[in-house]
Structure formats: C-alpha cells, structure tokens
C-alpha cells in the first residue's frame, strides 16, 4: 500500500491511526498489508521516498492499494502548482495520475479526495476536485472512465474525517479481494457504512419522533428543525458505532453537517435549518413532504411533557415515569 496526501489537512491519517488494539501498524500487519510509503509515518524521506514512488509509477514495484487523502488541486490555471510534491519538481496531481493506473485498487480516503471537500467550496480558489468526482458529478482528477487494475472505480471512503473503522475495514476488505462493484453505492462509497443514514441509531431519536426540537446548541432535543442537522439526509453508520470510543456528532451536541455527502461544503449557515413557511427545506431523504408535515403536526401534539421539557435543556430535567397510576 502507498498512501499520498494531496490538498489535505492530514486529518484522515490522524483518524486512521486511531484504530486498533495494537495500533494501526499492528492491524495492517494482521491483514497482511505492507506499507510501502506513507508521508507521515515512513522512514524514507527525500530521494529515498522518490525512489520508491518512481518504482511504483514505472511498474517495477507492484501496487495493490493506493490511498489518497486530500483534494486534488488543479489550479492555478490547470498547472497544479498549488500542490507540488516536495523535491520532485512535479505536482501531486501529476504523481497521482501516474501512480493510480498502477494500483489494483484506488481509495479516496475522506471527502476531499472523494469529491473535493472543503477546499472545493466557493470560490474554490485552487480549482479543487476529487479523484473521480467533482462534487456529485463524475469526472475529477482521474476522469469518469478511470478504473484501477481490478476494474473498480475509485472507492470513496467519504467523511470529514471518516470513521477510523471505515478506513481500515475498506483497506482490509480490498486486501482480501472481498469487494465488488455492487459493494459501492451510486457515489462510490462502500455500502457497509453507507447503506444507512447518520440519523439511524441517533440517541435523540425520541425527540425526533415527537419533533421535540433543540432551540440552541447543547439542548438535548432533535437538531433537525432549527439547528441545521442533516443526519436524516446523509449516509453513514455514524450513530451505530462509536467515534473516539463513545461519541458521534449528534452525541456531542451539534448537528450532522452531512460530511459524507458530495458538496456538503456548499452549505451556508451550517448551524441553521433553512425553512419555507416553517417547514425545513431538506426533509428526510425518502419521505414525502405531505406525510412529513402531517406526521410532524400529529407527533408534536402528542409529545409528552417530559420530552418537550428535556428537549430544550442541556440535561434530563424530567425522568421517565408512568403517565397515570401508581409510580413504578
């Protein structure tokens, strides 16, 4: 495996090495992945590193996995000069285009490498894009028709940063050749984590059901109605596995910003829900608007006092107990 950093913040590497009881290196070893070169972790530097990468680019050293982290920067004026690869006299764009066809599998680690990510936000000062996408549109640095040696397109481990599990599980499944085209969703994301919504398993689900909404950050209530939460529209098993042990964005008290989605960076006012006539513009992914409005009205009228009171507090102020009859 070779790992390269393009227009990145380094956060995907930081996330990757969070994983594993014996550390990330131990996990790679357990899955028989040999790390040929990684910019943050390998000993080889300068000429030694360039020799490894040249040998891969020339086809002398076979490559199973190429992981790219960071947006591909095409600017200024198509030159790629916003991201030169130190000491090589070449741009990272050039290196990626040389090495990617040699790889059996090509993995975009993070939403930047997948779709462009934050650097591709308006006014996209560096002409940033993903490996095989420009936002939600096929294309990007390698082009729509690119296939790695396995015949698969780029595998997009989207997320900003992705869950460490998404990264190692993708790498290990590829190493085991346990990956086919139909294991990817329509935007190239592994279905093992992209087949559910970030909303699924959210600890605020009772508040969601009753439309008992948080009014300000740190409130316990549902973050969708007022505070910009997109967990009902974004893919991810974010609330079905712990982040850094026990966390997730909504657990942390702030909204999902749909960081697994192409174009998430285009949002304006991340912490507010855009509404028309009091109805959120963006409704749960596959829910008809009329039903949403009708059910919301019904559930709001049925909200237990406990739920509505807790929703606008930063801790539980009303504990659950029987509505009528003797107390448990």
């Amino acid at each position, binding site marked *: 495996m070779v790992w390269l950093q393009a227009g990145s913040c380094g956060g995907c590497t930081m996330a990757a090495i969070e994983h594993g009881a014996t550390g990330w290196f131990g996990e790679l070893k357990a899955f028989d992945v040999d790390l040929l070169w990684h*910019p943050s972790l390998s000993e080889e530097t300068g000429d030694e590193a360039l020799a490894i990468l040249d040998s891969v680019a020339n086809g002398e050293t076979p490559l199973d996995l190429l992981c790219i982290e960071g947006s591909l920067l095409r600017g200024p004026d198509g030159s790629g000069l916003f991201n030169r690869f130190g*000491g090589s006299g070449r741009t990272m764009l050039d290196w990626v285009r040389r090495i990617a066809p040699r790889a059996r599998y090509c993995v975009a680690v993070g939403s930047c490498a997948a779709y462009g990510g934050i650097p591709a936000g308006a006014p996209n000062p560096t002409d940033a894009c993903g490996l095989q996408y420009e936002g939600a549109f096929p294309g990007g640095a390698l082009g729509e028709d690119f296939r790695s040696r396995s015949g698969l397109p780029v595998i997009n481990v989207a997320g900003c940063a992705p869950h460490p599990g998404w990264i190692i599980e993708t790498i290990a499944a590829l190493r085991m050749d346990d990956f086919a085209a139909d294991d990817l969703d329509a935007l190239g994301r592994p279905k093992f984590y992209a087949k559910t919504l970030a909303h699924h398993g959210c600890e605020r689900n009772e508040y969601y059901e009753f439309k008992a909404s948080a009014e300000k*950050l*740190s409130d316990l209530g549902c973050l969708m109605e007022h505070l910009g939460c997109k967990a009902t529209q974004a893919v991810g098993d974010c609330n079905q596995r712990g982040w850094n042990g026990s966390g997730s964005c909504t657990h*942390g008290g*702030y909204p999902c910003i749909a960081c697994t989605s192409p174009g998430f960076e285009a949002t304006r006012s991340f912490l507010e829900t855009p509404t028309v006539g009091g109805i959120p513009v963006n409704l749960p992914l596959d829910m008809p608007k009329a039903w949403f409005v009708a059910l919301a009205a019904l559930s709001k009228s049925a909200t237990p006092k406990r739920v509505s009171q807790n929703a606008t507090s930063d801790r539980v102020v009303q504990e659950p107990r029987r509505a009528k009859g003797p107390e448990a």
Partner: protein
Amino acid sequence: MTRTVVGPFNRVEGDLEVALEIEDGRIASAEVTTTLYRGYEQLLGGRTPLDALVIAPRVCGICSVSQSIAAATALRELAGGQAVDNGILAANIAHAAENVADHLTHFYLFFMPDFARAEYSDRRWSEATTKRFKAVSGEAAREVLPARRRLLEMMGVLAGKWPHSLAFQPGGTTRAVGMGERVQLLGLVAEFQTFLEGALFGVALDDILALENVGELDAFAAGPGRASDFAAFLRIAADLRLEAAGCGPGPLMSFGAYHGVAGPLFARGLRAGDEVLPVDAAAIGEDVAHSWMRESAAHPFEAETIPAAQKPGAYSWAKAPRYCGKAAEVGAFARQAVDGHPLILDLLRCDGASTVRGRVVARMIEVAILTHALGGWLRALRLKDAFCHQLEIPPEGRAAGLVEAARGALGHWVVARDGVIARYQIIAPTTWNFSPRDASGRPGPLEGALGGLEVGALGARAPIVQHVVRSFDPCMVCTAH
C-alpha cells in the same frame, strides 16, 4: 558551494521542501518552501461568521481543536461576551488532550525514528533504538498508538469526535458532562498517566514535574528514569550534541494557553534575552516579499490573501509573519520559556538558545504538566451548571482569537461586515517557524536555525538536517492553509 533541494520532507504533517546551499561541510543558507496552498482564508470570506466553526478546524486535522478554539475565541471577542466556566474548562480539557496527543505523536512517530536510520548503525545506542523506534515496525508504536487512541476517547465524551468537532462554541461547549462521564474521563486520564509513568518517563509524573534544572534532568536520565523512552532520547541527544544544534535566533513568543477564570495556565509574552515583554497584537504583520502572494497590507485585520504563483523571487506559499519586524520562534519551548518554567530557563541558559534538545524536552515536560492539569480541570467542573450559553454575533466588527496550538502561537483575525465575514486571516505556528525571508532578507526561524549547521561529507543527506527540521514539530498543512 552546492545547492541541494531536499524533499519530500516527510514525517512533518504535510509536505515540505528545503533548499540548502552547502559550503565546506556547512550549511551556508537555507530556503524553506511550503508546497501546498488550499485557500482557507478565501473560502471563509462571504460566509456567516459562525460557519468559521465548521471551516476553520479543517485547516488542520492534527491541531483541529486548536483551530476550533482560535475561531471560537475570535467570535467570542467579536460578540464581546464570555464563555461559561464549565465551557472554558471543557474546552481546555479537549485542547490539552489534543496537545498531549500531538506531542506524543511527534516524539514517537515523527522524531525518534530518525535515530533508527542506518547512518547511525555504528553508535552504541543504535540497536536498541532501532528495535524500539524504527518507523512503522518499531515496538514503541504498538504501545503508543493504543495509548493515544485511548487518550483521544476523551473527545468522544466531550466533543463528539476528533478530528473536526463543532463542540467548541463562543459561549462554551455543546455537551454537558454528567457525573458518570466525569468518572470515565478521569479514568482515561489515569490510564494515560500509567502509560507515561511506564514507557515514556519510567518514573512518577510528579518526579517529571519536579525537574528544575539540567543537572536534575541528567540525573533522571542516568538514574531512576534510565529505562524510559525520554531518557533514551536524552542519551542520544548528549551523544550527538543536540544541545548545540538547530539554534533558534529568537525571540520566543507565546500567546498564552488554557485561558480560564484565573488567567492562563501558560502566560502570554515575548522572551528576548532575560526579559519577558507583553505581546502587542498590533505589532504583528505578515510580509509577502518571498511568498507566492500579491502584495497587501501587513496587519491581519487589513491583509488580503491573493495567490501569485509566478511571482519573481518568491519561493513559498507561506507568508512571513513578523513581530516588530522580527522572526519570532513559537512552540512548546517558547511557551515554557515565556511562562518561566525553571528547567526550560536553565536549558536556555546552558544552550544559549532554543535547540533540538530543548524543543524536545519542552514537549515532554508539557506532556507531564498537561496530564496533571487534566485531572484538576475535570474535578473543577461544576456538573449542575451550564456548559454553554448563547452569544449574539454582531453583524459588524473585528476581533482576534489568539491562542496556542501544540506547535505554538495560533491567531485567527476576523472582520465582519453586513453579517458576513469580510476578511479572515490565520497565522499558524509553523507559519512563524517555517516562514520564508521577508523584504529585508531576514530568514525565518528554521532558515536561521539551519544556517551554519555542520553537515560534513554527507551534505544535505546528513541526518542532523532531519533532526533540526523535525525538532520544530512542523505542521505544513497549517502553514499556508
């Protein structure tokens, strides 16, 4: 005179290129090039100010919390309000956990592996060092990565996730910590302390906190702590004379860190010689004479960031921050020198400057100080009180958030107009340390520290070049952002 371009300069967080002119086995001059520009200041313009809390942390996935806290601090200053006490403490806890994780990652994964290089195979410490610290395969990584992972589980409790959390707001933090969670967090700190008292220090944390001078440090390394990783470094440093390598030209600057109701844990100031002066934020400016940037005003409240890739004489995407025209060095050594830590002041006295050894020692001392502080902050949380309140961001105004990241002084300057960001400027720690020359030809701190360095027959390939560069713990993704 030969000119050699060294790159990709890896294990530095991001990418780096260094051009060295070498004469008679000595570096005559160095040019430090930041090779990546992503345009974060341009991306922030025109957005609603609170969106900075989403965008700014993504400047850097390594010091993401520091970037969040700088943005939240700038917005809090803009609002003219205060965060609630619990919010300040919770932010300090997350910030310190990140800072410690950064120092640990630097020591074990970025810095020490250079001593396992084949060039050192004739040294008596080579075999043991290779076994322990070799990149990727060394045994230390098998202990330190899980310890780091467990430490960062504090983020899951406090901040949802790491890197890139929205928990850090102008008015506090978004998750109220409960009684059980405080115990979980204290448990994680205790577990991490056990790792430190085993592998890294080999003695009780209190014994590291008590070190006051170089004599005591040497006694620790030769005595009770001799089996520790820190002592292994100190012995190598003595053998390779790292106390005389990579001397920073100074001055040393810190914006002060871990601000609280009773003032910061580490003081703000500028150390020049024996004096510590207050930092005058108006004296900060960025020079772009050798940057691929169009000329603009110097002060971040007035400056623009407009790339100019073909600019003659330019060699870096980084601007050159200067304080009263001087290239200040920032980082753990500067922070502790400004705060007056007795051991760091003794190192400064003995070595005459910041050096490779001093920078690494300062980081290890901070690991101990901050791990100790974590327990105190956790116990100080008042669990029945709020963690966050709302601050109204005014549509017009300007403010700065001056904080410390692990790697040194970090500033965000925001100007709001008509309810949106009219200007956003960031000066990151490595922008200071790895700045290019300015209009007067004054080199940046690393350029200065490399100048005059003896490299012998190996020239640019001499490992001492690697040690000097990495002793700053550069974060190149932050540098030009």
